[in-house]
C-alpha cells in the first residue's frame, strides 16, 4: 500500500516523463532544433539530442521543446543546434557536443545569455 507521500512522489517522477506530451503548442514556446540528417547523426548529433532532452526534463523546463530537423546544408559544421526563443532572432550553434549542449541549456535557455563561443565564426 502506498502513502499519500508515495503518490505525490510518483506524480513528480512521472511528470518529467510525460512532459513531451504537453499540448500547449502556443507561440510562446522555445524550440531547440537539432540537425538530425545523416550528416548530423554521423557527426554525433544523437548524444547531443539526448543530452538536450535530459537537461530540459531534469530542469523541468516548461514550454521548451527539443525537436529534430533535417540537413541545413552546412554539413561540415554539424552537429548543429538552433535555438528559437519567441520574439528573438534564432541562434545557431555549431560543432556542438554533449558538454556544449549542457552549457546551451544552462546559459541560453535558462539564463538568457547566448553562448557566443559556440557560434559560427567568420574565418
Amino acid at each position, binding site marked *: *500500500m*502506498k*502513502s*499519500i507521500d*508515495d*503518490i505525490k512522489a*510518483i*506524480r513528480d517522477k*512521472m*511528470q518529467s*516523463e*510525460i512532459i*513531451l*506530451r504537453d*499540448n*500547449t*503548442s502556443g507561440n510562446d514556446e522555445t524550440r531547440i532544433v537539432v540537425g*538530425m*540528417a545523416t550528416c548530423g547523426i554521423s557527426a554525433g548529433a544523437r548524444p547531443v*539530442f*539526448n543530452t538536450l*532532452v*535530459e537537461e530540459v*526534463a531534469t530542469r523541468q523546463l516548461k514550454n521548451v*521543446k*527539443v*525537436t*529534430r*530537423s*533535417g540537413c541545413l546544408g552546412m554539413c561540415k559544421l554539424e552537429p548543429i543546434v538552433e535555438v528559437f526563443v519567441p520574439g528573438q532572432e534564432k541562434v545557431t550553434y555549431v560543432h556542438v557536443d554533449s558538454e556544449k549542449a549542457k552549457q546551451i541549456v544552462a546559459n541560453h535557455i535558462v539564463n538568457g545569455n547566448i553562448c557566443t563561443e559556440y557560434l559560427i565564426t567568420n574565418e
Partner: protein
Amino acid sequence: MFRSTILCCGGTGCHSNNSGEIIKEFKAQIAQKGLDKDVEVVETGCHGLCAVGPIVIVYPEGAFYSNVKVEDVSEIVDEHIIKGRLVQRLLFKDQSKSEAVKALSDTNFYKKQTRVALRNCGVINPENIDEYIAYDGYQALIKVLTTMKPEDVVKVLLDSGLRGRGGAGFPTGKKWQFAMMQPKGQKYVCCNADEGDPGAFMDRSVLEGDPHAVLEAMAIAGYTIGSNQGYIYVRAEYPIAVERCKIAIAQAKEYGLLGKNILGTGFDFDIDIRLGAGAFVCGEETALMTSIEGKRGEPHPRPPFPAVKGLFGKPTILNNVETYANIPQIILKGAEWFASMGTEKSKGTKVFALGGKITNTGLVEIPMGTTLRTVIEDIGGGIPNGKKFKAAQTGGPSGGCIPAEHLDIPIDYDNLISIGSMMGSGGMIVMDEDNCMVDIAKFFLEFTVDESCGKCTPCRIGTRRLLEYLDKITRGQATMQDLDDMEKLCYYIKDNALCGLGQTAPNPVLSTLRYFRDEYEAHIKEKRCPAGVCKHLLRYEITDACKGCSLCARKCPVNAISGEIKQKFNIDQDKCIKCGVCISNCKFGAIVKK
C-alpha cells in the same frame, strides 16, 4: 529518458480499424531499430476524431497523423522518428484549410472544444495508473480525505452547479446531500455506464481513455455519503471499457487507493463491476439497480428515490460516467472555476457524440451555451457533399429534433427542453435534406418497441400502436384522423408510462410533428415522401434520356425492367422493390425517383 512519444489511439473506433496491429507494428519496428530506450509507444483512449481513425500522434512535434494503416508504420518510423521529417502524406487535412495540419491543437475540430471530462482521453495510457497520477490523478481524493468534511464536498458540488450528465440534469450536489443525510449504515455508490442511446459513446470513451477518473470520483462519493462499496454497471458490449476498468481497479487496489484503509486514512472503499446484457431499460436508474441485485432488469415507481431506498433497499447514489469524470477536477480547481463555464443554469461542459451526416464524426466536448451552429459547422466541419442541414437529433430515443431555425440557440439543459428536445446523454445525430423525418421517428420507435421491458401497458402496447401508425403513414395508407389519434396516443403514453423509457418514448414523434408536420401531411394527403426515403411512396421511372443499353435490366435483381435494345426500357411497378440499383448503374441519368 524518452526523446519521442508515439501515441496510438486504442479507443473502440480506431481499434475496429486495426489500431491494435498498428501499435504492435510500431513496437516491433522501434525495437528492431534499437530505439526502444529512446522512443515510447503508448496506447491511449479516444481522441474524438473517430472519422479519420486510426489516429497516431508523435510528440514532441505533436504531429497528427490520420487514417494510418499498418503499411504506413515503417514510413513514420523511418522518416519521422529517425530522420525527423514529418510524413506530409499522412498528416490530417482540415476541411477548412487547403494544406495539411501539423498538430491536433491546430484543427478547427479541437480549437473550439474545452476538454474537462475528456481531458486525459487520448493523452494518457489508460492502463498505467502512474500516468493518471502524473496528470494530478488521485490528488482530489487525497484532498478530500485529508482536508474536507463530507459537508464540504457537497457544498463544493452545489456551488459548482454540476448537473447529472446522464440526461435529466438533476443537481449532483443535491443527490449526494440526500444520500449523505440518511442515517448511518450500509449505503452504495453506483456508476451508470449502461450507455444505450443509438449513436452515443461518450461514457465508453471515458472508461476506455481515463478509467481512474471515474474510480477516484466514486471513492470521493463513498467518503461523502458514508459508503464503502461501489458498483460500475457497464454493458458487456463494451469489452475494451470493461477490460480497462478491471485493470484500473486492480492497479488502484495495489496502490491502496481502493480497498481497506485507503492511504492510511482509515477510509474503506471498494468497487466491483457488474455487466449488463445490453437492455436499454437498464439505463433507467431503478431498473439498473434491480439488475445489479441479480433480478430481471425492470423499473419500479419512484418515490422512494434511490437516495432513500435504492440498491438492496439501502440509500444509494447513481451517477453517470461523465458526471463522475468532472468531479475530481471540480474538487481540485474549485467550484468557481467550474461555474465560470457555461450558462446561468447549466455549468461546465458537455460531451456530445457527433454522428450522422457530418464531416467530423466523433466525440466533442463544448462549454454549455455553445450554439448548435458552432458544433455543426465549425467543430463538426459541416454537412458533407454540399447538402443542406435539416435537423439535429439529440437525446436519442427519448429526445427530439432541433430544426435549422433553432441553430443559433445556446445548448443547455433548459433551452433544449424549451424547444422540445433534451440534452440526453449526449448523442447528436445530424440529418440533411435526404432524411425523411417520419422515417427517423419510425426508426426510434422501432428501437423503443424492441427495448420496452413490458412491465407497464402504456409502454408495451402504446409504443407498438404508435409504430403501427407511423408504418401506415410511410406506406401512404394513413388518414388525417390517424394523425390526430396518433398525437393523442403520444400524450397518453407520456402521462401514464411507469418509467422514463415509456414517458419519453413518444418524444421523437412529437418533436418531428412539431417542426415537420408538413412532411407527415405530404405522406398522408399527397402520398408522397418529400425526401424520397419511404419506399412504398416511391416510383422509379425511366425517362426519354434512355438509350436502350439494357444495363439496368441486366442489373435489376428482380427482373422488373424490360425493353428492346436501343429503345426506351420500362419498369414494371408491381415487380419493382425500389432498391435503386438501376439508378446507380445508369450511365445516362435516365432513371428518376419520384
